[in-house]
């Protein structure tokens, strides 16, 4: 799509920010696994946590094309940074904005937008991944309270989260309509987070289990209505997918940038390797796929901004872009030869960061099911 002047200025400003404030820290964030609070605050100041969230709740209401621009540009320099932005704009922020009570918005959403609190979304369990509805975590009513028991796994930002949206079964007999979302604050007795996982990539976004051991939560902490938690989560998936697709686009673009730079510099057989036709074929394949993804992603984002249904498009964008960025990152690494395998070159980190994208926010196989379901309905 052709961007408007406003969107062009946003891209330019995010790119400036990414180059000045994020790029110099990217390698360090990946190595240490520590995300600097100063950078987190700068993300908040630039409104990156509230791009899709309406103005009245502390966001900007700028929409999904802008969100994709921000994700693409930031993912080009640091994928860990984009993981901190995804949740407030999609899985966490949207249900709070759409279903939260005024009190919940004031207590969780507004501070999240301002960078004062970081929340997260806890759906996955050790035995409930793609089949999220098979969760074991329970919430049993006790007067005005609920008692939560269970374990959530692979929870993004759990080690640093101030509050967590926990999905738990309130009525097993009702299946997906018996799952409820609860806002649980760190510090609530019985709430704890597990050890920080040692991951292959996106190391600057800490991941751990969330453990709920007889956690007593007041009924006012239910997000949405009892029994509607799962459906509420499903409704935000399209938004999450398009945003992750844009992240994949940024990862692929950074791999491409590194590849082009390297093949122009690297001399073998008396010339830069970019002069060899075999190398050029690889570069053209990579560039073509990147731009196919770009066209699909921004088209889908624009449709979303216009209020159209994007269930199939978002799944296709996420499926294609995540597979594409793994392919492009692998080829870019191949073009670097032995140097690409060394941690001294950025492509090593880019390759590791790409890997998770075909897994989280719905695996490629789940996206394929979604696409086919839309085709055959």
């Amino acid at each position, binding site marked *: 799509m052709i961007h408007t*002047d406003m969107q062009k200025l946003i891209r330019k400003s995010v790119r400036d920010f990414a180059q000045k404030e994020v790029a110099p820290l990217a390698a360090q964030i990946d190595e240490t696994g520590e995300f600097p609070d100063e950078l987190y605050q700068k993300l908040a100041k*630039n409104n990156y946590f509230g791009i899709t969230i309406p103005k009245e709740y502390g966001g900007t209401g700028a929409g999904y094309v802008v969100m994709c621009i921000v994700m693409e540009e930031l993912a080009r320099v640091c994928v860990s940074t984009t993981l901190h932005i995804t949740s407030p704009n999609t899985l966490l922020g949207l249900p709070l904005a759409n279903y939260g009570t005024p009190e919940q918005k004031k207590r969780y959403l507004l501070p999240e937008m301002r960078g004062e609190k970081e929340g997260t979304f806890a759906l996955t369990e050790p035995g409930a991944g793609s089949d999220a509805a098979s969760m074991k975590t329970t919430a049993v009513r006790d007067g005005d309270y609920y008692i939560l028991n269970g374990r959530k796994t692979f929870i993004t930002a759990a080690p640093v989260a101030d509050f967590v949206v926990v999905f738990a079964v309130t009525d097993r007999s009702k299946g997906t309509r018996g799952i409820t979302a609860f806002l649980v604050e760190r510090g609530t007795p019985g709430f704890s987070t597990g050890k920080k996982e040692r991951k292959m990539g996106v190391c600057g976004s800490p991941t751990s289990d969330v453990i709920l051991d007889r956690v007593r939560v007041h009924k006012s902490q239910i997000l949405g209505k009892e029994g509607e938690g799962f459906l509420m989560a499903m409704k935000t998936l399209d938004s999450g997918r398009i945003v992750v697709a844009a992240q994949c686009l940024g990862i692929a673009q950074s791999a491409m940038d590194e590849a082009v730079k390297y093949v122009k510099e690297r001399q073998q057989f008396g010339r830069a390797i970019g002069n060899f036709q075999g190398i050029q074929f690889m570069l053209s394949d990579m560039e073509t796929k990147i731009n196919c993804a770009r066209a699909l992603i921004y088209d889908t984002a624009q449709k979303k901004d216009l209020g159209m249904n994007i269930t199939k498009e978002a799944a296709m964008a996420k499926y294609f872009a995540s597979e594409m960025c793994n392919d492009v990152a692998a080829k870019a690494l191949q073009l670097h030869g032995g140097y690409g395998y060394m941690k001294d070159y950025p492509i090593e980190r880019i390759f590791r960061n790409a890997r998770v994208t075909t897994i989280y926010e719905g695996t490629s196989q789940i996206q394929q099911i979604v696409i086919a379901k839309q085709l055959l309905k």
Partner: protein
Amino acid sequence: MKMIVCVKQVPDTAEVRIDPVTHTMIRDGVPSILNPEDANALEESLRIKDRHPGAKVIALTMGPPQAQAMLRECLAMGADEAVLLTDRAVAGADTWATANTIASAIRALGGAELIFVGRQAIDGDTAQVGPQLAERLGLPQVTYVQKLTTLEDGLLQVERRMEQGYEVLRVRTPVLLSAVKELNAPRCLSILGICEAYEKEIKILSIQDLDITPADTGLNASPTKVYRTFTPKTERAGVLWEEDAGRMAGKLLTALREKHVI
């Protein structure tokens, strides 16, 4: 305090090439940007506004209609208002005619206590418009401002960058200041700032709104005549030595003595 910041849209000279035949700048495909030192001037005005709520910052530019894109950027940074002076009559103005015209636009806007400009634009590199503007407006001026402190009402303390060191001056408003890049680091734009910048109106002025006539502006009022433009050739090549450090140090000493550097 009312502040007017004079800004200019310039080609990003980091990406500019010169046509080897015509010796003019190849503008095709070169992005236009807010002149970097004008961004420093705007940033400093916005910082004054941050410290003194109620202060007002107006970004003013003279240029073609496309310059509105840059004014949106000024609004996104935090300027309260943006004004574009655009008219075919002002085209081709040199620094003299430009200063005439902008001074008139500032009068049309009711003047200001602080006029802030960038030291120079990266396309022309003259550094003349700021000082000429102060003369036209009959204002005191401090050029090369690298640090600014607001003291009591209407009194500013500024550091003026010199080749070796700096001057510390105290000036009363109204005054014209020109900013150098050492003054500050311009802020990043927020998403909300950009969205809101596109909801604001840009005020458009033409020569009819000013107290000057077409004879006072544009090419006709420009005493500067460009005789020829060319790309300077680098005729002296550098010397590269690669041998052991002791021998190189000796050679360097001899070479520097021969050139009477030491």
